[in-house]
């Protein structure tokens, strides 16, 4: 891939405990800059773990991650936190908004954490994003007064406010009804097209995955298949996923 914003080399992840649980094995992938990449696979295949490793939330046990040309080696957690603040945005299945703050304040939180920009400018930017996403009217509402779809939109605005390079979304519509889910997905796809922000999304929904430009399918913690949807075409990818289940030859 010519322009990859993220690369992994032989990434492995094991959760150590009473019983060690290996989750990812030798994962080497590339995420195209400005594209929409979907991570699919059955439950327990390691999609979310891969996403969290890519988003620098969960340190891999082995292997390397290159983020925007910089190799992320053993950094301390505070440096990683500061790096996340300026470079990545997260959208989770549960919105994870802070009930102590209004909708607008929740959107502003990443700016407050990062500091730097003047307060008035941040506020203008946050309001602009909220208007664009259709939650401008709820800015002063407490987040628990909003519907599930509205809450997830506020979470999207929060992920966007620091103009990150990559947004990581883990089943962002998993907790929404079909209609709100569609609207949220449509919005994310639109934002991805118009802002050149890279979008990496974990989903188990085939329909959602087929809207992506790239699809990685994971099985048992390994990359099983890759589709360059732009090149092979949406239908071919759909047929392939539909007709043949992916198995890894050991």
């Amino acid at each position, binding site marked *: 891939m010519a322009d990859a914003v993220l690369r992994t080399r032989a990434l492995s992840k094991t959760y150590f405990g009473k019983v060690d649980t290996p989750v990812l094995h030798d994962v080497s992938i590339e995420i195209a800059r400005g594209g929409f990449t979907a991570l699919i696979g059955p439950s327990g295949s390691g999609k979310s773990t891969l996403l*969290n490793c890519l988003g620098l*939330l969960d340190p891999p046990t082995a292997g390397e991650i290159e983020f925007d040309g910089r190799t992320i080696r053993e950094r301390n957690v*505070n440096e990683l936190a500061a790096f996340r603040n300026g470079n990545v945005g997260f959208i989770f299945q549960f919105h994870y908004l802070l009930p*102590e703050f209004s909708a607008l304040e929740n959107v502003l939180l990443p700016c407050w954490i990062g500091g730097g920009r003047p307060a008035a400018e941040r506020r203008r930017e946050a309001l602009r994003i909220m208007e664009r996403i259709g939650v401008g009217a709820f800015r002063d509402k407490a987040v628990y007064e909003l519907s599930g779809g509205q809450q997830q939109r506020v979470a999207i605005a929060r992920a966007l406010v620091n103009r990150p390079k990559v947004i990581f979304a883990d089943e962002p519509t998993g907790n929404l009804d079909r209609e709100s889910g569609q609207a949220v997905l449509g919005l994310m796809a639109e934002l991805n097209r118009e802002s050149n922000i890279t979008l990496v999304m974990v989903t188990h929904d085939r329909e959602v995955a087929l809207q992506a430009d790239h699809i990685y399918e994971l099985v048992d913690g390994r990359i099983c298949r890759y589709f360059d949807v732009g090149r092979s075409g949406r239908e071919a990818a759909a047929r392939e996923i539909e007709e043949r289940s992916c198995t890894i030859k050991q």
Partner: protein
Amino acid sequence: MKKPANRYEWMIALRFLLRGRGQTLLIVLGVAVGVAVQFFLSALISGLQVSLIDNTIGSAPHLLVLPADRLPAGAAGVLDDAARRDSGRVLIDELTEIQSWQTYVDDLRRDRRVLRAAPVANGQGFIERGGAVIAVTVKGLVAPDGLDIYRIRAKTVAGAPELASDTALLGQRIAERLTLAVGDKFVLRNDRGGRLVLRVGAVFDLGAAAGNDLLAVPMDQVRSFFAIGGVSAVEAQVRDVFAAEDIARGFGRQYARVKLESWQERNRQLLTGLRSQSTSSVTIQFFVIVSISLAIASVLGIAAVQKQRQLGILKAMGTTDRSASRIFVIQGLLLGGVGSLLGLGLGLLMGWGFVAGTGAAFGLEVSARTLLTPIVLALAAAVIASTIPARKAAALSPIEVIRNG
């Protein structure tokens, strides 16, 4: 490294506290009651002590230079340096009197810790009036320091408190017993049959019973009337009454032919009383602080668990471990700060109520110490108590929260 933008930490801390309003209110009230009790107790006990000390030594010398009740060093043929610092004269008379008193007065007055110093000549005499004869302690004083040590000028209730020959300043009890008024004349006798006619110049009321049995006249008149060659003692008051013992010890080391006595040595029982009062007050304060700390630690400990989700997402968005722990220390500070301010108000109210309600003869001692100590202690306790949840917050891994929903 980038400077931490910690305004948001304050905001988050405040919102966390406001979100659990009931819990916050209870703990703030807990801190307030603790601080109020602390302030009230220490102000009350300090007030009581100030008043006790003032009653005991407010109108009395804090330290005395007295004739040594041993043979002067020079008499035994050993004249050391310290002895030479005295006038150099070695007289056997100094066993009951101080001859070279001027040196001691000068030395004491030069010391910055000493407020005033004066020689005094004491005698025991009798006053005859009508058929009555009463014994009095006659003090020969020198103005102004001599008068001020006994606060005679400030406590004069009638007449002009001036020392002049053939004029006596009278304690109120004597004046009342002998129905003497300003301007009246009476006869003072000594044990050798000497007679002196004195006119009442002023009457003073020192409050304490002993003080009101005094008769003050000019020192030289006492010396000649009682045939005292030197003086009976040199008396002094010091700025910090509790330093009197140290000062006395310091001067005592310099002089060989006199001994120094502080008010502390003369009032051991009072001192022991004061000390046990202070100890009990400190003990109570200590346990109040312990209970404040435990309360804050438990509330913030619960909050750290309750807010795990929020902390996890804040960390995912870039909050550092240090920031996360600061959020809890700030919560401790806010609880401690608001609680102490409220507590001071409550404590002042309690104190005012106590003084007004019981008609106590002493006031509360409201000083920087009694005001600030409970606040500083409560804040310190709050910060220390918050370190446990703060550490928990720092150790929380965002991925734990996110993986476990």
